[in-house]
């Protein structure tokens, strides 16, 4: 069986990629995709931990199901906000959305 830490390393790698994307991307949609990547890596973490450490309980499974349900709701709201920004300004580039500052 593949050892637990392989899964954790993959999850940590995906999470770091997501975080890098959030911090470096300029397009709001790309930032949203990076956030989804972060949430997905958490799910991988949860399922791996559950399978290897406490398979007799349902905790980890339930947690993962909640996480992707919430992630879907979050993505829906995020896309709606991006669309309303686009209708007002014809742009989704994060740096150009800057009326509010200081």
């Amino acid at each position, binding site marked *: 069986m593949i050892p637990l830490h392989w899964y*954790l390393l993959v999850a940590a790698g995906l*999470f770091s990629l*997501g*975080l890098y994307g*959030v911090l470096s991307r300029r397009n*709001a949609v790309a*930032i*949203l995709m990076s*956030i989804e990547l*972060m*949430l997905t*890596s*958490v799910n991988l*973490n*949860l399922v*791996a*931990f559950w399978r290897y*450490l*406490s398979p007799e*309980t349902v*905790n*980890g499974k*339930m*947690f993962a199901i*909640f*996480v992707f349900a*919430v992630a879907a*709701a*979050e993505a829906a*709201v*995020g896309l*709606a*906000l*991006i669309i*309303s*920004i686009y*209708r*007002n*300004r014809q742009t989704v580039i*994060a740096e150009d*959305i*800057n*009326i*509010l*500052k*200081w």
Partner: protein
Amino acid sequence: MFTESIPFLQVVVPILPEIGLLILLLTVLLVDLFTRLVRKRTLGVVTGVGMIVIMLANLFVGFSLVNDASYAGTALGGMIRYDMLALMFRTMVLIAGALTAFISIDTPVVGKQGEYFGILTVATMGLSLMSAAADLMMVFLAVETASISLYILAGFLRDSKLSTEAGLKYYLFGAATAGLFLYGLSLLFGFTGETNIYNLAAPLGEMFAGDDTGAFAVAVALLLLLVGFGFKVAAVPFHFWTPDVYQGAPTSTTAFISTASKAASFALLVRVFDAVWPVEVAVYWTGLLAAMAVITMTLGNLLAIVQKNIKRMLAYSSIAQAGYTLIGVVALTETDLGTAAVAFYMFMYVLTNIAAFTVISVISNTTGTDEIADFAGLSRRSFPLTLAMILALLSLSGVPPLAGFFGKFFLFAAAVDAGYTWLAIIGVLNAIVALYYYLTVVKVMFVDPNEDTRPLVITPAFAAVLWISGVGILLMGVIAAPWWNWALNAAQSITAMAP
């Protein structure tokens, strides 16, 4: 685990406010459906009055049952903890929700939308769950229920560039920090195989004391959780969203985010950090939070001084207030006074900030903007508004005998009691700096000339909010003892009655 049957009441009572809010949500949607052509004012009245009824019912049931052994402690399979702290913070959240509903009635655009009140109810439900969550899953779900609803409320004015920008910024910042927070939660689950926050401390303590790798891993989880909480309470360095969102969002939403969301986040912060981190880790997280408190207070106050927009100024002021409150969280490992001071401070802060934002709403309804300059000559235009604003500003700056003075007094007393005298001194110095920009607004209201003579309309809804919050600020100041005893009870309840 679920084999023995649990009496019906023991399932219902711990989540009474949430059940009430769910019924209220359906009622609001129905009322919206059938008042399309009639007066839309009904929506806000139904939401506000409904929340007040839920709050009173919860208080009534709570005070008779919260010390009853068969109800107290964790409920619903460990998801919820029913104790005095939850009762007190749920009361705050529901008051803030009700007053926000009343403010919204006469806020342009949002006051006529059933969806606004519906989503406000859902947000209140999430915040109410945050005040009582006792399981990592429930923590995450409650935080996200509240956050996702608040993103919509902030970006609610679809045709306004400011509001949509506020919504998007709040969303991007919030979702990214939620990801970090969630990664921290998954690590906590992985380290212990448990999700109930009251079972985490012992295995985490062993792991921390075990070897360097274990200690490092616990530290990573701690930092990730701090990011999430830092965002929710608007502490530096996770505060960047605060001024933009406060300024851009509809004023009623700003009032709600700045009060209810902050109060519930502090409830969760106190509960989680008190329960999860073992004694060995306490010194590290209190150190980190103390540093955050100092930077948050100082930066918030200094940046507030230069603001021209009143909502932006109150945003930086609210960052500073979060800094003061963090002092109480730092002190909680040493003394119950810490948690009690946080609870008292948040209670007074909810009332005070709602009063301030109500005055801003009244003025911006007439002028269409929310600059500090709009307040010029207010003392000659409307005496009640001036009085309410002075009450709010003096309470925020901590002038006796108002609620804010006792709030700060209890916080600094807790800090001294826990051996953080230097933190209390920095807090007092900051309070003096803050007095400057609060009094600048008072000066503008009394001294500056203003040719604008358009009448300021204080509608019945605004008047009701100003009365409730104004009387609250005075009551919590002049007769502070009962509230303080309540807060002390709440503080003792989180450690008493082990689950």
